[in-house]
C-alpha cells in the first residue's frame, strides 16, 4: 500500500490515498509509431549541430558550467532564492501531516499551471472536510514528493460531482499590461445546450 498523504485539518488528521488521473485513464491514449520504408519501427534520436553525431536515448546529460565555461559539480553550488538568500530544503509532504489552513479563491488556483491530478480516497471519516470542499472551498498547501528545495503548490478541491482531488502544479507569473507596455514574456521554455455539450467533448482530442 502506498504511503498516504495526511492532512492536518483543525484538530483532525485525515489520510488519503492518491490515484493519478490522466488523459489515458479518462479517454484512452495515443501511441505514435514511426516506420521506415520497409515497415520497420524507428526510434527517436538527437542529431548534433555537426550533422553527423547521433545521440540516442540516455546518450546525453546535463551539467553545470560557471560563467567562465568551467565544469563544476553540483555539490559545490549554493541554492539561493531571487533575493539571494540561501534556500532551505523542505521535507517530503509524506513525512508529516500537511496543515490545511489556507483557503484560496478560484483565481489563485487559476494562476497555477497544473501538472498532475490525483483522485483522493480515504478510509477516515472525511465528511465534514468533504462537505466544505463541495461548497467550493479550495485549500492550498506546499507539496513536495521527495522533499527538496522548491515545493510545488498543491490544491485540495472537489469536482462538480463531489469527488475529492489534489492538483499539483507551479504558480505562473502573469503581468498586468498597461497601454505603454507589452507583457513580459517568460520564455523557458452561439451554442445551445446540445452544442455546448458538444464543445466539451474532450475525448475528441
Amino acid at each position, binding site marked *: *500500500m*502506498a504511503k498516504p498523504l495526511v492532512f492536518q485539518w483543525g484538530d483532525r488528521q485525515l489520510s488519503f490515498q492518491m*490515484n*493519478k488521473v490522466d*488523459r489515458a485513464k*479518462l479517454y*484512452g491514449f*495515443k501511441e*505514435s*509509431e*514511426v*516506420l*521506415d520504408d520497409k515497415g*520497420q*519501427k*524507428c526510434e*527517436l*534520436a538527437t*542529431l548534433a*549541430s555537426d550533422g553527423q553525431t*547521433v*545521440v*540516442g536515448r*540516455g546518450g*546525453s546529460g546535463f*551539467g553545470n558550467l*560557471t*560563467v567562465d565555461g568551467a565544469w*563544476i559539480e553540483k555539490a559545490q553550488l549554493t541554492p*539561493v*532564492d531571487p533575493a539571494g538568500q540561501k534556500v532551505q530544503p523542505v521535507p517530503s509532504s509524506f513525512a508529516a501531516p500537511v496543515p490545511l489552513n489556507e483557503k484560496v479563491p*478560484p483565481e489563485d488556483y*487559476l494562476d497555477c499551471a*497544473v501538472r498532475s491530478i*490525483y*483522485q483522493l480516497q480515504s478510509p477516515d471519516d472525511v465528511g465534514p472536510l468533504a462537505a466544505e470542499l463541495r461548497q*467550493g472551498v479550495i485549500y492550498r498547501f506546499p507539496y513536495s*514528493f*521527495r522533499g527538496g528545495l522548491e515545493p510545488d503548490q498543491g490544491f485540495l*478541491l472537489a469536482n*462538480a*460531482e463531489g*469527488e475529492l482531488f489534489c*492538483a499539483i502544479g507551479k*504558480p*505562473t507569473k*502573469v*503581468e498586468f*499590461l*498597461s497601454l505603454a507596455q*507589452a*507583457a513580459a514574456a517568460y520564455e*523557458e521554455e*452561439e*451554442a445551445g445546450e446540445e452544442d*455546448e455539450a*458538444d*464543445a*466539451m467533448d474532450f475525448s475528441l*482530442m
Partner: protein
Amino acid sequence: MPEISLFNSAGRDAVVNLQSVTTPLRVRWLDPQGRQVGTARVVKSTLDRDLEALIEKHGDLRAIGAAIRDQDPELDIETAGRLLSETSRVYVDRGRKIVHRAQEWEVIRNPDGTERTRRRKAIPDPNVGGETPPLKWSGVLIPKREAVRKFVFVQKMQLAHINGLTYDFLFAIAKELESKESLLLLGGGTKSNQPLILRRGGSQFRGFLEGRTKGETYRLVLHLSNLELKAPEEKDSPEQPAEEKAT
C-alpha cells in the same frame, strides 16, 4: 511572436499577440565565488557506441565487459563531453542509420489498452493565428467557481496588445469577463466547438479566456485544458505519485 485573432462580444475582431506564460525562476545556483552558474547539455555517448552496437561488435556482455576494461570502446573521446546545442530530432532504424522517409502512424487505444483505431498521423495546422479566421465569441460563459471544478488547466497563454487600438479591445474584453466572474469558452470552428491548435502539429486544447483589470491595466489569460476534473470509470489500486519530479 505568435498571434491570435479573435472577436469580442460586439462582433469586432482583432489580431493580438499571444505570449507564453511559464513559472518564474525561484531557485538559482551560485558557485563558491557567488556567481550564477548555467546548465549545459553534453554528449555522454553516441549511438554507434551504445549497448546494442557493442553487442553487435563484441558478441555478449562478458566480452563487452572485457573490451570496456581494455579498450574503452563505449567512449569516443572526440565526442564525449561535447556541448549539445541547436540539435535536431531524427529517426533512426534498427541499424542506427538516420531514416529520411519516415511514416508516422497513430495507434489510438481505449483506457483498457485495447486498440481502437490506427491511422496515419495528421499534422494539423494552427487555428488561432493571424492568418486563420478569427475565433468567435462563443458566448459560453462559465463561472470561475464552476470552471475550476470541471476542468484541469495545464497551460496558459497571455494575450497582449500590439497598439493603442488593440489595448482598448483587450482591456474591454478583460473588463467584461471580470465583471461576470466567468471564463469564456474559446474554440475553433463556426460553433467554437473545435479544439485550439496553437502550433503546427501541436497538442489540442480547449480554451478558456479569463480577464482581470487593475486601474488602467489588464491581464487576459487563455487557460488551456485537455482534461476534465473527473474520476476514471474504473478505480485503480492506489498509485503513489511516483512520476512527480523531485523538488
